[in-house]
């Protein structure tokens, strides 16, 4: 009666499906390259070298992966509650702006004060923004995907409006920016490794979220609510509060990403923050099937792809958007791979009546 290897086969299925999707996307992308007279092998080689070929390229990769870890959580946490939230980009830029603006009065007090203030302000802003989506969903029944997308446009517009308006440093001529937090207050790289400081923060956030989801009662309740709302209601679980909570927490992660980007990279909030991290986070969360631990390798993979973009541009003469074409193909393949589950007999339970 019992089927001892079934849990292992199920895990294997969960690993194979995204892998197959990645391979399918690669095949499709190869055709795309061949049509343009480019060699897929050259592309693979250059991507590998640009992303993981040297310690320098690793640093570049990790620098891009750092915010992605957090923006992917902004999709994965609501995703565990059955919500598809795709507006993380606005939480990143508004989080970065809030972190900068709130920290400005404290710049004289040194990084010990400034950095925690920035983190808190960024998280609060991001949590508020995505929490609004969760509230619209839970209380008013507004489709959360559409709401978060529209709110992302609004958020970006507000960001531009403020950075080019009230918060603008008049000295920033070509690229409107806020006042800076000062070089002394910025986050340095991790000593010796010279790695972006967002990496340990992001990995810690992923581990904490994994523990929350899979090891606590709260996370269990969230998974029940996400897996079947009716069953959760029947068990008296506060479905609406759980949904809003997951959105707030996810938004806080994305807001923190914005704050860290300002503190580690730019020193001030400007349009550089809107680098598409929020959108790439969607792709990563789906690749990881909303599992926070799986986000870590996927974020590194996608970070590497981004890092190799410059090299590809120079060596193969491919436009910058080529990498985005590949990302888009991966996303479609991942979504299509959901239909893979349950199709292959070998993975299914055996001997059940």
């Amino acid at each position: 009666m019992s089927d001892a290897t079934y849990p292992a086969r199920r895990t294997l299925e969960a690993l194979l499906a995204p892998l197959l999707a990645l391979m399918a996307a690669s095949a499709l992308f190869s055709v795309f390259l061949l049509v343009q007279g480019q060699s897929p092998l050259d592309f693979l080689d250059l991507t590998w070298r640009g992303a993981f070929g040297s310690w320098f390229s690793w640093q570049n990769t990790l620098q891009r992966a750092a915010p992605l870890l957090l923006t992917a959580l902004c999709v994965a946490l609501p995703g565990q509650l059955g919500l598809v939230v795709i507006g993380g980009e606005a939480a990143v830029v508004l989080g970065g702006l809030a972190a900068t603006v709130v920290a400005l009065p404290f710049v004289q007090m040194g990084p010990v004060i400034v950095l925690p203030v920035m983190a808190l302000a960024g998280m609060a802003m991001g949590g508020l923004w995505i929490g609004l989506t969760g509230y619209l969903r839970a209380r008013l029944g507004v489709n959360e995907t559409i709401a978060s997308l529209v709110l992302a446009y609004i958020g970006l517009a507000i960001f531009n409006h403020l950075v080019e308006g009230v918060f603008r440093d008049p000295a920033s001529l070509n690229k409107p920016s806020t006042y800076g937090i000062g070089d002394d207050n910025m986050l340095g790289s991790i000593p010796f490794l010279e790695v972006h400081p967002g990496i340990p923060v992001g990995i810690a956030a992923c581990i904490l979220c994994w523990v929350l989801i899979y090891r606590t009662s709260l996370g269990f309740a969230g998974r029940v609510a996400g897996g079947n709302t009716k069953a959760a209601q029947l068990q008296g679980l506060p479905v609406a509060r759980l949904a809003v909570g997951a959105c707030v927490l996810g938004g806080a992660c994305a807001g923190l990403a914005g704050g860290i980007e300002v503190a580690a990279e730019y020193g001030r909030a400007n349009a550089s923050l809107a680098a598409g991290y929020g959108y790439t986070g969607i792709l990563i969360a789906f690749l990881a099937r909303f599992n926070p631990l799986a986000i870590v390798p996927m974020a590194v993979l996608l970070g590497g792809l981004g890092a190799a973009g410059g090299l590809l541009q120079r060596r193969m003469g491919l436009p910058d958007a080529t990498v985005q074409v590949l990302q888009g193909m991966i996303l479609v393949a991942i979504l299509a791979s959901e239909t893979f589950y349950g199709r292959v007999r070998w993975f299914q339970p055996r001997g059940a009546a």
Partner: protein
Amino acid sequence: MSAIGVEAFGICKRFGTFQALSDVSMKVHPGSVHGLLGENGAGKSTLVKCLLGYYRADEGSLLVDSKEAVIERPADADALGLGMVYQHFTLVPSMTVAENLVMARRNVPGIIDWKSESAALEEFMRGMPFKVPLHVPTGSLAAGERQKTEIVKQLYLRRQFLVLDEPTSVLTPQEADEMLGLIRGLAHSGQLTIVIITHKLKEVAKFVDEVTVLRRGRFAGAGSVRYLGPTELTAMMIGEAHEPAEPERLGEPSDEIQLQVRDLRTAADGGRAGLSIAELTVRAREIVGIAGVSGNGQKTLVEVLGGQQPIESGSVDVGGIPYDASREQAQARHVRVLPEEPLRNGCVPNMTVVDNLALRSFDRDAAGTQRGWLDLAGMAARAREMIAAYGIRAPSPQAPIGVLSGGNVQRCVLARELDGDVKLLIVANPCFGLDVKAVAETRARIMAARNAGTAVLLISEDLDEIMELSDRIAVMHGGQVVHQMPAAGADPQEIGRHMLGHE
């Protein structure tokens, strides 16, 4: 239009490695009412879908009207005059009966001349044994009328051979008797051959001429109903003699009121009236059965008691204190719910059997205090106990519950909801879609809970089930409890009248 016979020989059908049908034969005489019996998963639906071209049989042959027939798609069956009425209605609710009929035709012209179509339909209706209003949206028809419309539609499409899938599951006893009587009349007048897929042996005895019985994808027996009684049929269906033992009722209901509903009102939902229940009580060691035609507020009542639907006014008291169905109150007062379709309403299909068995208790430790960390080892241990105690068959406790069979999902939900001290149990259509043995087991468990002192509110569309289990019966119609009576000596015909809203 005259009835045609259908014969199937040696039909085999595999899905992947699953052998759904192996070497099944069935012979349906023209102008007869043929019963197709079997438990859930016995292959009844697969067999008729092979006949109707929805599936292609891997092996076997078909004779339609004594001629070899190849049916590869539904259109082939259509051309031969074979049709089917599904368990779930396939009418478009916002369209009138006339529009539904014309739309179903194969050769609908690009521009429909409604005047002449209407005249033709009126003419057609005059020849029908039962009347349905032509110009009323089907959504506003009662279930019985919709069922008749489905059959009229098949006759309109000039079917000579018609399969009815569980045709009476949504009808009152009167409607069912009337409908089956008319169907039988049509068949015996030689207009139509009927195959009824059913599990109601009373209907088989009363309306069916011959039966074919399937068991686990194989032919298990056939013959004339004159020589096959319920005992023989049940034995064929489950492969062994099975005495339908009535669960024993021990002890009288106590005086202690567990559930008291007073002046309960909920908001109207779309076209349906909300609840308006003046009074309903359930005492300890008592089963109160709620009878009613589907869609008369029973579902809303379960949702209110399960916390899925807010109330507008009135009160719900459990154990003498107002009850809001929150998790804290449900845990403190030991209120449990067995929802209908347990996989859809009471389980998380993607989560494991262990997780699903822990839905009631994951956030409490043994002493009943809130806990923040999951006790994974404790959850697994309790799940093992429940799996053993309820005979749950699962490939692994770590398998997602969605891969279990319907009977095993129901066992999981029973194990979870009947675990520990249960003061009030709300049950909705507990045996829907279960096989004979699982039905008997489920009913026995509910009765055992009652005997142990649990107050049970049983909402069911199966009147036989209500008659068998209840101490008291309440009938719902239009969101109201229109009649209450003791179950002992209750007359099904009288209950049926109240179900339809007649005095």
